[in-house]
Every structure is written in structure tokens, then in C-alpha cells.
């Protein structure tokens, strides 16, 4: 019996070889069938140029269809079917989506997440970008703030659960937050088990992981702002803060919007941190986590899971439209 790792490596090499064999083989075959020489040279070149892009695109399009487009359509189809995905149930799942209390709670929370997290992460990212660009030790600070971007949701959950750890009154508080609260004369709180408070902390953790991302992008955008506008404002007697707020920020409105939208997509997919810290208990559930639990709950209810995925998709649609409009605008420029 071979070691699983050896089998995996062999499979990987096989997969990569297959991809390369396809691209060489298909191109070679095309040049054989429509050779760029001889009597029909110009016709052959023209025809080959029409076919060749699809040889390059083929494998990627196959994967995109098999793992994104076809499944997305499948999810729509499943939303009209029962737990096993076989019996047609009409709009029963969709009706359940609007009626169910747990869904409403998760939808409300997701709404709150959408309002708070992208705004907070973008704003803090902007502050971080401005500060690290001005101060001499900004480079080091930028790396340290950017670091949580590399941290997995699971690890971030452990890191913060330790900060929020709760011991009963009287016992030494080993969680940093409760130790500070006790030191300041307050009563230690079980932060994670309190509705709303736990959602605020979950949101703070996601802001913590995403701010660095927003910061580096906005920092790059700020540096691209032409210096002459800043100089002109300075000559007119504007303070540093005024220059930043009224001259530099308005000129990076595009990147700010892009970061905001990216953060919104991140928020909609938030799953691991909620799963690890509360698993949706104490009124802290979000749609992505609820969808996941319906996928496997009691053997899995694929119909309800699918309808919850559709709810997430519906929330993404406005962003999708905005992105596409932005894309269309840049192409026209």
C-alpha cells in the first residue's frame, strides 16, 4: 500500500502533465490540420486564429462550467426540491426562508455585518494608510497591521477567544479583556455568550483580519495622488488634516469603493470565525453559517441549504451589478 501522500503527488503530476499535454497536443494538431503554409495559407491562418483561443481557454472554461456555472444553476434547481434533492416541493423552501425565525435572526445579523464591517474595515484601513504613510516607522507598522491577513479564520478565532476568555468573578481572569475590565473595577463578562455583544466581537475580529488588506490598497492609492494638488492646498494654508480629508481622500474615491465592495463580499462569506466561536449560538448566526449547518443537519437538507445560498446570492447581486458597470465604464475609457 502506497502512502497517501505519494499517491497524491503522483496524481498531481498526472494532472499537470495532462494540462500541458492538452495545450501542446491541441496546438500541434491544429497546425497539422490547418498548416500555415502551402496553397491555402491565408485561409488556414485565418481559420486557425479563430479556433486557437478556444484551445487555450478550453480547460479553464470546462472547470468554470463544472464547478461554478453548472452548480449555481443546480442550486437554483435544488431550492425547489426536498431535503434529498429529489422530490419537487415547489416554493416550500422559499416560503420557509421568509417564515423561519432562525433565518430571520441570521438575516438580521448578516444585515448588521454588512452595515458595520465593510465601513469599519475601510475606515480603519484608510486611517492606517494615512498614518503609516506619514510616520517614519510606518513601514514596520504596516507589516504588523497587515499580518492578520495571513491568519486563517480558525486561528483568528482561537486568538480572540483567548482574549475574550471568561472566568467566574473572583477567579484570576486569564483573558486580556476581562483582566482589563476587572483591573478597572468592572465585572467580568462572558462576552461570547451574550447576544449582540457576541456579534459585535465577531464583527470586530473580521475587521481585525481585513483592515490590513484595505490599508495596503488605500496606501498604494494615496501615493498615486498627484502631488501638485496637495502642494496647491498647502500654499492656500490648509492643515494636514484638511489636505487629507478634502484633497487626497476625494481623489481615491474609486479605490475606496472597490475596497468597500471587496469587504462586502468577504462579509457575506464569513463562516469560519462564526463556526469556531459561537456556531451561531446566542443569536449570533449569519446566513453563511446557517446554510452550512442545513447542508449537514440531520443528514443534510439540500433544499433549505440551497435556498439559503440563493439568499446570499441575492445579497451579492447589487455588488455584481456595480462591478460590471464599473468594468463597462473602464473599458469605455
Amino acid at each position, binding site marked *: 500500500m502506497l502512502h497517501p501522500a505519494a499517491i497524491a503527488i503522483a496524481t498531481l503530476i498526472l*494532472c499537470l502533465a495532462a494540462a500541458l499535454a492538452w495545450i501542446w497536443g491541441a496546438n500541434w494538431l491544429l497546425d497539422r490540420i490547418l498548416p500555415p503554409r502551402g496553397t491555402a495559407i491565408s485561409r488556414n491562418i485565418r481559420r486557425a486564429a479563430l479556433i486557437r483561443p478556444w484551445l487555450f481557454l478550453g480547460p479553464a472554461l470546462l*472547470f468554470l462550467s463544472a464547478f461554478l456555472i453548472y452548480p449555481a444553476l443546480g442550486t437554483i434547481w435544488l431550492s425547489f426540491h426536498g431535503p434529498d434533492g429529489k422530490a419537487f416541493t415547489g416554493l416550500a423552501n422559499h416560503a420557509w426562508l421568509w417564515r423561519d425565525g432562525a433565518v430571520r435572526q441570521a438575516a438580521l445579523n448578516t444585515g448588521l455585518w454588512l452595515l458595520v464591517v465593510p465601513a469599519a474595515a475601510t475606515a480603519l484601513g484608510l486611517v492606517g494608510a494615512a498614518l503609516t504613510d506619514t510616520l517614519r516607522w510606518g513601514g514596520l507598522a504596516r507589516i504588523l497591521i497587515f499580518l492578520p491577513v495571513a*491568519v*486563517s479564520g480558525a486561528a483568528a478565532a482561537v486568538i480572540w477567544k*483567548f482574549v475574550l476568555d471568561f472566568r467566574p468573578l473572583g477567579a*484570576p481572569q486569564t483573558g486580556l479583556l476581562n483582566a482589563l475590565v476587572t483591573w478597572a473595577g468592572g465585572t467580568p463578562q462572558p462576552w461570547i455568550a451574550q447576544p449582540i455583544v457576541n456579534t459585535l466581537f465577531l464583527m470586530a475580529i473580521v475587521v481585525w483580519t481585513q483592515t490590513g488588506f484595505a490599508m495596503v490598497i488605500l496606501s498604494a492609492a494615496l501615493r498615486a495622488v498627484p502631488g501638485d494638488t496637495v502642494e496647491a492646498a498647502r500654499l492656500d494654508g490648509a492643515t494636514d488634516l484638511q489636505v487629507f480629508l478634502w484633497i487626497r481622500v476625494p481623489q481615491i474615491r474609486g479605490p475606496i469603493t472597490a475596497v468597500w465592495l471587496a469587504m462586502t463580499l468577504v462579509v457575506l*462569506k464569513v463562516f469560519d470565525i462564526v463556526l469556531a466561536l459561537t456556531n451561531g449560538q446566542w443569536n449570533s448566526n449569519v446566513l453563511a453559517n446557517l446554510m452550512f449547518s442545513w447542508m449537514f443537519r440531520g443528514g443534510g437538507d439540500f433544499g433549505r441549504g440551497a435556498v439559503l445560498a440563493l439568499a446570499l446570492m441575492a445579497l451579492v447581486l447589487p455588488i455584481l451589478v456595480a462591478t*460590471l458597470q464599473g468594468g463597462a465604464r473602464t473599458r469605455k475609457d
Partner: protein
Amino acid sequence: MAGITGRRSRPILHLLLAAMVLLWTLPTLGLFVTSFRAGDAVRVSGWWTALAPATQSGMVRIAGDDTASGAVRSGSVLRPDQSGARITAFGVSSRDPDAFAAGQTAELPLGGQLTLHADGRYRLVTPDPAASGQRVFFAATMPPAFTFQNYFHVLSSEGLVGSLVNSALVAVPSTLLPLTLATFAAYALAWMRFPGRALLAVATVALMAVPLQMALIPVLRFYNFAGQALGLDTKSFLGIWLAHTGFGLPLAIHLLRAGMSAVPREIIEAARLDGASELRILIGIVLPLSLPVLAAFAVFQFLWTWNDIMVALVFLAPQEVLTARLVNLMGSRGGEWEVLAASTFVSLAVPLVVFFLFQRHVVRGAVAGIST
């Protein structure tokens, strides 16, 4: 005037940034310190107490020793594992346990003298060699105590090494496969003219916004179906690679297309006039010139697949990768912070190394991905 304002507001700016850096590093630092502390210490005191020397008090009975020939006894009140501790004060009765400073000589109530040095060495002179023993109370400053024990433990007996290997077996192929496929696709979108090109480029951008959740259930159903029909394992590495490849392709194509488009048109046109084939232009010219953007995507995809838990939970057996094991550990061993902390940093080691080595690529990739 602007200069004055600028100079005056400087300290506030430093303070603001310092506060931010503190907030962004302290939580991680806390867990890092905890991963080097002994379990008993973790449960009774906060990690910040481990950074400063701790004051500890103790009592030792210098026992009567029948074989002792003389009236003078010497030794140490500290155990071998307490080396490094410094005695600050000592006493010979429980009512006054810190009556003397280290290095002083105490007169014993029943006659005799006791000298206790800062490093724990004592010298007891007693008039009666057969006396039952002399109690010594002392206060000592213990240096911060750190241990690698937690790491030895999680790496040897918690099955973490297996998960580490599994995470690598998921992340590396899930990075290489989409990179390869996207290279060809992105070249076609960037440098070949054909009907439908603009539409395809827009469609890839749109696919980036589609939540993964939309695809999970049908793909899972397909794997279950195919597994049963062909008698294969429904949860396999190949399965998760293919899924990650599909999910990662939109970003890959988008980033690589943007990077490849930046290659000067003249170079490509010249190569075409020389009769170079498209494949040769891609491999000989475009690929070497767009290595930075290839690296950026590779780093992103590696971090994302290494850190992913959702796709792993759906397509692999439970607890197989590090993230899944970590979440499981949180539920089952939530109180054993030292085990959790060490496991977390084992799981973080690889992404942090990748992050520091390729930091520039990550930043460049992020900027390129969002601004195009």
C-alpha cells in the same frame, strides 16, 4: 502655518498608530506567549504575568541529618528546576517570614545561625547536630519560565503532523492547477482576438463575486453520485483540488489577464511577425514578463486554500486539515489553552513564512486585483 500644525499634531499621530499596532498585535502575542507556558501556569495567571519576573514564597525544612559529622550544614533551598530564581528575603519563623534580607545571617531562637544567599545557598550552624530540622521561609523572584513542551506534545501525540501534511497536500496542488489553467486562458483573453472575448472577460469578473456557497451542494451531490457509481472514495484529495481549482480560476484569470496585458504590444507584434507560434510567445515572452503577477496569485491562492475550512469540511473527512482540527480542538479541549495555542502556531507557521517571504507580491497582487 501648515508646517506648524503638522509638527504639533505629530505626537498624536504617533500615539494613534501605536494604539493601532498594539490592537493588531497584542491578541496574537498573547497566544504566542501562552504557547510557551506550562499548562498549570496558563490556568491560574494571565499570559502577561509570564513576561515579568514573578514573586514566589516558599518554605523549606533543613532536615536533621544523622550522617552529618559537624555542626555546619550547607546546601540550597531552591530545587534544581528553580535555578535562576533570586532570594529577596527570608525568615526562620512563620510569623516573620521575611525578617532578613538575602545574604544576612539570622540568629536562631534556639541558638545557632543561618545565612541564606540570594542564589539559594544556605549555611546553617547549629549547636545540636541531632536537632529535628530548621524551617526556612523565603521570598524569591522567579525569572519568566518558558517551555517547548507544548510544541513537543502537540507535534508528537496530537496528530498535528498528519494534518500539517494534509494541509500541504490540499494547498500546493490547489495552487498549481488553477495557475496552470489560468495561464493559458489569461493569455487568450489578453493577446488573442476572437469574438466573445470582452464578454468572457466580464464574465470572469462576475464569477468572482458569486459566493462559494452557491456551488457547494451540487458539487457535493455530484461527488457523492460519482463516488457511488464508480466505487470511489467520495472524500478525496483529487476532489478538493478540482473544486479549489474551479473556485480559484476567476481570480486567477482576472489577475493574470491584467498582468499579461501590461506586456508591451510591440514585443508581441514583433514576435508574431517573426513567425513565432502563440504557444512560443506565451512561454518565451509573456510568461517571464508576468512572473510577478503569477507569484502574487500563487501566494493568494496558497494562503486561501491553506486557511480555508469550509471547502475542506465539505469535501474532506472531518479534522483532516489543520483549520478543521483547530476548530474541533476548540470544542473538545477548550480549556487547554496551552495545547490550543501551540496547535494554532503550528498551523500559522507556514502562512506566516509565506507571507513574510512574499509580502511584496501579496501587496502588489491585492492592488492589481482590486484596481483593475
